[in-house]
């Protein structure tokens, strides 16, 4: 029904007259499906929050999305003092949106505030590694980590933004959400809770920022939950930019002359988790031959080409290829081979297959394809499509044999933000192999990059060899924008409005 509607809209849009984007007023009108719980990056865990955060606030370090290189943003240089201590030289002459100067006090206050569990930062993993921050002089700080934490710089380049200390101390997270003050390339001029956020270019943004000087004057962000409505808005020139558009809709909108459709790979990977524990509801999954059979049964290449979409690629280990430590070198591969899958099942004593529930929470079409592949080799898979939270409870309670999952690693470019979540003996580890856990732990906590890489490589090979999971593919995302807008899609799903311009 919805697809039919899409085609109807499209045929009418093609007949309609093309319109100019909101180029004249130098404003990008952007809509997202949900509103953030707070615009303060420390107090939300949704993508739109990350997007707003990166425009309004700056971090100590900036990761260049093109080269992957770390550059100084609020910091001008940094060095490792010992295993657990990093020292940062801070940039001079940076001002917050309220005119206050940026100094060491802001860094020390923000990090010490965020590190305290009683301040309830939404994603504790983003800050729980910080033991404390110390001021050395007005433009030099030291950050001490609780354990050896090699990914610290990556976190300081991502979710850990710096707040103006006097203002933040006075108004708190609540006031910072209502009247936000940052130091980033844009400042928030209006925030109507649940409805809209308006960003305007910060005229005093510091010259040397690796983000550069923004060209777009104003960004109007509205929250429109319905995908069809967002689609109708771009087609009637009510919006200039939307993201996370479904593949079939994006394919159709590519034909509208005044719109451009851009797709790109994201850091989000899809995979299947297999419960092999003694408590598993599906006993056959304890047999490695059965798990290998499942791996051989699924034609990932065809899925990528036909239903997942442009930008996606097949993965062979449970991590995103660009992450530090992620590799599929030396890992066992399971090419599509239904005959071999059947043989393995027969060898394991299940020539007629078995029944299994497969739980999923998004990309339903892809789960259905997987189910068909499994049925083709005799495994009678039944779909249980649930909300994320409900699925999570089932996994933790050992109530499900197979799950079709995805993971975005919080856009953190390091294996520590991904693989250990599934194999590190925490809540949702349904394989619990101590050997794998130990190698991951070594990878997470060694200082030497070579040692880290070697440990992750071994862990990933063990997971592949023992077929603890089915690595599937990276997921693409589609953007639809006015054809006059110049922009680039990045794997971290972050539209960078400060880089955008008009044709």
């Amino acid at each position, binding site marked *: 029904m919805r697809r039919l509607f899409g085609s109807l809209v499209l045929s009418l849009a093609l007949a309609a007259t093309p319109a100019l984007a909101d180029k004249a007023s130098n404003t990008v009108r952007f809509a997202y499906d949900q509103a953030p719980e707070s615009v303060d990056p420390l107090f939300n865990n949704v993508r739109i929050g990350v997007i707003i955060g990166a425009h309004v606030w700056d971090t100590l370090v900036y990761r260049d999305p093109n080269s992957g290189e770390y550059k100084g943003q609020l910091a001008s240089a940094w060095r490792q003092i010992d295993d657990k201590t990093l020292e940062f030289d801070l940039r001079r002459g940076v001002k917050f949106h309220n005119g206050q100067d940026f100094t060491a006090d802001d860094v020390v206050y923000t990090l010490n505030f965020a590190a305290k*569990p009683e301040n309830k930062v939404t994603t504790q993993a983003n800050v729980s590694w910080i033991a404390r921050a110390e001021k050395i002089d007005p433009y030099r700080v030291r950050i001490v980590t609780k354990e050896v934490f090699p990914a610290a710089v990556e976190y300081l380049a991502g979710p850990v933004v710096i707040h103006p200390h006097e203002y933040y101390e006075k108004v708190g997270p609540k006031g910072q959400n209502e009247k936000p003050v940052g130091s980033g390339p844009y400042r928030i001029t209006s925030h109507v809770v649940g409805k809209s956020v308006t960003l305007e270019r910060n005229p005093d943004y510091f010259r040397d920022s690796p983000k550069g000087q923004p060209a777009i004057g104003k960004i109007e962000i509205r929250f429109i939950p319905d995908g069809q409505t967002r689609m109708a808005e771009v087609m009637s020139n009510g919006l200039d930019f939307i993201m996370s558009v479904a593949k079939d809709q994006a394919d159709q909108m590519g034909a509208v002359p005044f719109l451009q459709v851009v797709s790109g790979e994201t850091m989000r990977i899809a995979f299947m988790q297999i419960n092999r524990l003694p408590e598993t509801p599906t006993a056959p999954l304890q047999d490695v031959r059965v798990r290998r059979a499942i791996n051989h049964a699924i034609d990932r290449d065809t899925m990528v080409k036909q239903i997942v979409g442009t930008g996606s690629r097949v993965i062979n280990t449970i991590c995103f290829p660009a992450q530090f430590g992620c590799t599929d070198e030396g890992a066992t591969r399971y090419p599509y081979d239904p005959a071999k899958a059947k043989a393995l099942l027969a060898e394991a004593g299940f020539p007629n297959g078995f029944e299994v529930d497969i739980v999923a929470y998004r990309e339903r079409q892809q789960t259905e394809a997987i189910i068909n592949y499994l049925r083709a080799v005799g495994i009678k898979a039944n779909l249980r499509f649930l909300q994320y939270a409900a699925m999570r409870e089932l996994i933790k309670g050992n109530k499900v044999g197979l799950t079709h999952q995805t*993971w975005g690693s919080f856009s953190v470019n390091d294996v520590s933000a991904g693989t250990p979540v599934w194999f590190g003996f925490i809540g949702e580890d349904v394989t619990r192999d101590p050997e794998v856990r130990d190698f991951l732990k070594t990878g997470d906590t060694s200082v030497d990059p070579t040692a880290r890489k070697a440990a992750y490589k071994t862990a990933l090979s063990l997971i592949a060899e023992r077929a603890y999971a089915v690595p599937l593919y990276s997921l693409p995302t589609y953007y639809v924008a006015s054809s006059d807008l110049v922009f680039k899609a990045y794997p971290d799903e972050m539209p960078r409005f400060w880089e955008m311009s008009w044709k």
Partner: protein
Amino acid sequence: MIAFVAKRLALALAVAVAVSILSFMLVRLSGDVATAIAGEGAREEDIAIVRATYGLDRPVLVQYLDWVWSLLRGDLGTSYYFKSDVAGLVLDKLPVTLKLGIASLAVALAIAVPLGVVAALRPNSWVDRAALAVAVVGQALPNFFFALVLVMLFSVTLRWLPVSGSTTAWHFVMPTIALGYYVAPAFMRLVRAGMIEVLGSDFIRTARAKGVPERRVVLKHALRNALTPVVALTVVQLGYLLGGSVVIETVFALDGLGYLAYQAISHKDLPVMQVVVLILAVVYVLLTLAADILNAWLDPRLRAGM
């Protein structure tokens, strides 16, 4: 009469309390709230913090009594998701929904009454059939779909109206039509049935025999009497209207109470969900109460049965 009013008041209060208990329990039965609030990718420690922050680790009965006690002191709570006062959020969004509700009701009556009258004047004629078709389509068409068809026509093709938002009066045109059309069929059928019945009654024959002009017979004598049940139905339809506004406000991103309810449900924002459900229930109960009392006052026979 006083005894009757007191009885109805007590019943209304009981219904409101029952609704509050039900809504409170149902949202908690639908799975672990803390996990849902913490969101995708949250780790154990994040969930534990959420659970402790909102007191979700306490027994449900304690949570309920705590909530009722706060309500009685006039504290509607703080939104889990938006972190602001529920009272403020609701008061901010209510005017949009009221505007939409009243305008839609007006649209519904403007469609339903003339169509119902025309259909009743010539039962089983082509006019009647056409009116019936309009009603059936209105009732069968999911309102979100009708809304999207409107968008397609008036925004995408003709570019006359803005697609979504609530900034100007123009933004309300399509939502009002979509919602009004959704509740119109029930009114239309009631007007038609009422008119047919009244038109066949003795006093109409008398009026016609006296030589009262037909126009006056229909509009003054018949319609007036046929409209009495419509007033009672309005109360019931208001419930549909408020329910329908959740869908319509979401489709048009109209920043009202329905949209707030949708956001609250998708984020498991319990304090907001509970207050919205309670407000809707109380409004409904109060209107029903008013209608009952009004009817009893008009018709003493109704009092005896209670």
